[in-house]
């Protein structure tokens, strides 16, 4: 700014100076002309032209500024000076120049005797270059002078600012850097600045510092309090976590104990249930005895079913139940159940009316589960129906298959909202509140649904939806009435070959029942109470078939299996057919047995019919590898909660890959099938879809050798799984995402 102002001021000064110099120059010229005029007049007065000319010439000689010409009206006078150097005589011209339009200055000369008589004129011709130079010199000089003054004044000002502003601020800044405001240090103003703006600035800084110290103090205190609070919350969270973990462990232990208790109940119950049939075989009981035997039989089977169901319900609740669908006629099942309930219905004068699609109506479901659902719902319906009314059951084929159960009674108001909830019961002294809850659970575990509508006027309608059987899977031969309930009658007519059987079980009751089940002859039955005895028995004589319990003291079933296989391989004997005979009927146990090398996994209880049919050759194949794998998909998959959002997209992309899998299968392209199965296996494993990963692993492993129909079954199952699987988020530990 200062430089700009200085420059501006300099320019203005130089312009003014130049104007002034030009005015002065013009004025001097005028004065010069006056002098010349007077001299010429005097020369005229004395009539001495030579003098006049000389004076003029002399005066003008020293001036480099002007050229001069004198014109006379008198031609004679003019001709004398024509040759005079330094002056141009224009007397020849008869015209007078009377203006200074071309820069010349012209002055008429009057006669001293007669001022009215103009005797000639004087013409001054200024040299503009010379005048300009002079003017410029003057202006330059003034400019230089002014510049120097500016420099001196500016320098002075700078020194003043440095001394009075910059230095004190630097001093303050240095003290500010060293100052520790938190221990109460404050700035002091530089010497001599106490009363100045700088002094006041120091005061302001000190006030600000004091306020900041107070604010920081507050903030620090708050942070400390927050940290303390956070510590307390963390401690409480840890305590809660520990309590949670302890609770979870306790629950796990409790559930495990209950599960074992239920499981252990099955073995003796099975023995009890089998005894009446065995007694009947030896002797025809009288009526009273038959009634008692039937009571034993039906009660034992009822308890067995309850125990089995409670084990299954437990698995369904925790999402580990393996759905094992098979094709069966649901219409036949409905008829069977209504037959069972006929007595009860008659007692209440309630009729069953069955309608809907023409039977058979095939579903893809588990018969025992559907039996439980229907038995429960129809029993409820009979109980709820007003006397003398009808319970309607309609079975509609389609996708889904729909069963509609209707009775005229309404569900009491207090339980309508909680109809399907666990432990919800009304008006039954022996009701557990599990009936409708488990019915819905069982429907859902089969990828179906169970809903209820009720009103005082319309009565109660329960809708059960089940998966239909794909068209191509519908059996060509119409099945029989359907195995509605396990039958207690022994299988007559099965031709059992003469086989050497080895029974291995540590439970004497079980052993006894099994022995009684096996007709001898034609069978030859040997027993062993543990694995070691079984191996020894095999060493002595090769059995054709071994029924092996899995959990036994001294040596368990798996170890015994391994040793028997080794022994027979060493000896070059044909391998015995070894059946795992266990009270564990879940899918994991089944897979474990087959993986270990058992030919079959048979779950207790098994009816005599099943066992004899097995021995007669139907349903018993030599090696498990040829057995069509059972397809038991998970119904609920728990995925890490951070993956949960991605699941819909993931499933969509997997369905697309499964469709490609089917295409490869149709085209018989086994290599492409393998690649796709491998790809699916990897991603299912990552996202936590264990069952699907396992199925894909099997597809991959068997892609080369297995029958395409068998592979198709697995692809079907995978499709079904992907279409119906329920995915739930599982809370994770902190370690993964941190």
């Amino acid at each position, binding site marked *: 700014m200062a430089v700009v102002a200085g420059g501006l001021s300099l320019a203005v000064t130089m312009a003014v100076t130049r104007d002034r110099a030009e005015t002065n120059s013009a004025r001097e010229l005028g004065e010069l002309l006056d002098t010349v005029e007077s001299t010429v007049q005097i020369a005229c007065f004395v009539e001495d032209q030579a003098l006049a000319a000389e004076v003029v010439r002399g005066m003008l000689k020293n001036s480099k500024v002007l050229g001069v010409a004198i014109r006379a009206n008198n031609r004679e006078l003019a001709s004398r000076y024509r040759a005079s150097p330094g002056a141009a005589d224009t007397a020849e011209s008869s015209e007078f120049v009377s203006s200074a339009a071309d820069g010349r200055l012209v002055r008429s000369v009057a006669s001293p005797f007669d001022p009215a008589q103009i005797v000639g004129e004087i013409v001054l011709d200024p040299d503009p270059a010379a005048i300009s130079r002079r003017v410029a010199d003057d202006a330059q000089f003034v400019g230089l002078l002014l510049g120097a003054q500016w420099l001196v004044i500016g320098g002075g000002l700078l020194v003043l600012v440095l001394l009075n502003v910059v230095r004190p601020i630097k001093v303050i800044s240095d003290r500010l850097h060293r100052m520790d405001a938190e221990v109460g240090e404050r700035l002091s103003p530089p010497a001599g600045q106490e009363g100045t703006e700088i002094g006041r600035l120091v005061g302001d800084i000190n006030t600000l510092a004091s306020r900041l110290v107070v604010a920081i103090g507050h903030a620090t205190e708050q942070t400390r309090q927050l940290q303390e609070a956070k510590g307390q919350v963390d401690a409480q969270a840890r305590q809660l976590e520990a309590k949670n973990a302890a609770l979870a462990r306790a629950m796990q232990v409790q559930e495990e104990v209950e599960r074992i208790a239920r499981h252990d109940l099955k073995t003796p119950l099975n023995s009890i249930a089998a005894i009446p049939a065995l007694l009947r075989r030896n002797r025809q009981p009288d009526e009273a005895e038959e009634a008692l035997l039937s009571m034993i039989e039906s009660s034992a089977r009822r308890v067995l079913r309850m125990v089995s169901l409670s084990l299954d319900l437990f698995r369904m609740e925790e999402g580990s139940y393996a759905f094992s669908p098979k094709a069966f006629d649901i219409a036949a099942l409905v008829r069977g159940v209504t037959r069972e309930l006929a007595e009860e219905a008659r007692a209440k004068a309630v009729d069953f009316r069955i309608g809907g699609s023409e039977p058979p109506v095939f579903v893809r479901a588990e018969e025992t589960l559907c039996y439980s659902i229907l038995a429960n719902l129809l029993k409820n319906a009979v109980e709820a129906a007003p006397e003398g009314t009808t319970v309607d059951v309609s079975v509609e084929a389609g996708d889904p298959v729909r069963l509609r159960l209707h009775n005229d009674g309404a569900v009491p108001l207090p339980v309508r909202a909680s109809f399907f909830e666990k432990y919800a019961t009304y008006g039954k002294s022996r009701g557990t509140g599990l009936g409708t809850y488990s019915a819905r659970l069982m429907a859902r575990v089969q990828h179906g649904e169970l809903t209820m509508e009720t009103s005082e006027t319309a009565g109660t309608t329960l809708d059960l939806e089940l998966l239909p059987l794909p068209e191509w899977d519908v059996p060509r031969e119409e099945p029989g009435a359907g195995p509605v309930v396990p039958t207690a009658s022994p299988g007559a007519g099965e031709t059992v070959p003469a086989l050497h059987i080895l029974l291995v079980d540590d439970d004497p009751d079980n052993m006894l029942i099994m022995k009684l089940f096996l007709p001898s002859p034609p069978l030859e039955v040997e027993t062993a109470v543990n694995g070691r005895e079984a191996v020894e028995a095999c060493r002595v004589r090769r059995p054709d078939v071994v029924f092996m319990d899995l959990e036994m003291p001294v040596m368990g079933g798996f170890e015994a299996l391994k040793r028997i296989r080794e022994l027979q391989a060493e000896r070059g004997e044909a391998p015995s057919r070894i059946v795992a005979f266990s009270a564990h009927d879940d899918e994991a146990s089944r897979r474990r047995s087959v993986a270990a090398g058992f030919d079959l996994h048979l779950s207790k209880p098994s009816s005599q019919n099943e066992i004899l049919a097995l021995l007669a050759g139907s349903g018993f194949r030599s090696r498990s590898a040829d057995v069509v794998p059972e397809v038991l998909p998970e119904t609920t998959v728990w995925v*890490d909660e*951070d*993956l949960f959002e*991605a699941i819909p*997209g*993931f499933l969509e*992309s*997997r369905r697309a890959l499964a469709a490609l899998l089917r295409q490869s299968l149709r085209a018989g392209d086994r290599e492409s099938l393998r*690649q796709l199965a*491998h*790809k699916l*296996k*990897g*991603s299912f*494993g*990552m*996202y936590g879809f264990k069952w699907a*990963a396992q199925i894909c692993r099997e597809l991959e492993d068997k892609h080369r050798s297995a029958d395409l129909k068998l592979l198709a079954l697995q692809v079907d199952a995978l499709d079904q799984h992907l279409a119906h699987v329920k995915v739930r988020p599982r809370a994770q530990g902190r*370690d*993964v*995402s941190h």
Partner: protein
Amino acid sequence: MMSTRKKILVIDDDEAVFGYLQTKIGCLYDLVTTTEAGLAVDLAVRVEPDLILCDIDMPDINGGELSVKFRECEYTRHIPFAYLTSFVSPREVRDLRGNVGGRHGIAKATPAPEMIEMIEQLLQ
């Protein structure tokens, strides 16, 4: 400021794998992913990853061939390399002491915390 996060190049023909890794380990590492196994070496040269995770069973070029290519390329041979595969289960990887076909291996079904542990070891 330069990022201190390590960069991992993941090669797999299934994008679901990238989604899983992004969710599970994306908060710890910068993931560069490609389903184009044929272009993986060029990509590695360009992005200079700290680790390469490579599927084995891929349609055009398999993981084994790719591992050779990485080893032959002077710009990538120093980069740690591991198979990320479902050919082996986590248990099998443990039994094999992490060695799958002569290279490091991580099973796809490895739980995330263990996977991170394995990656950290490889990055050292």
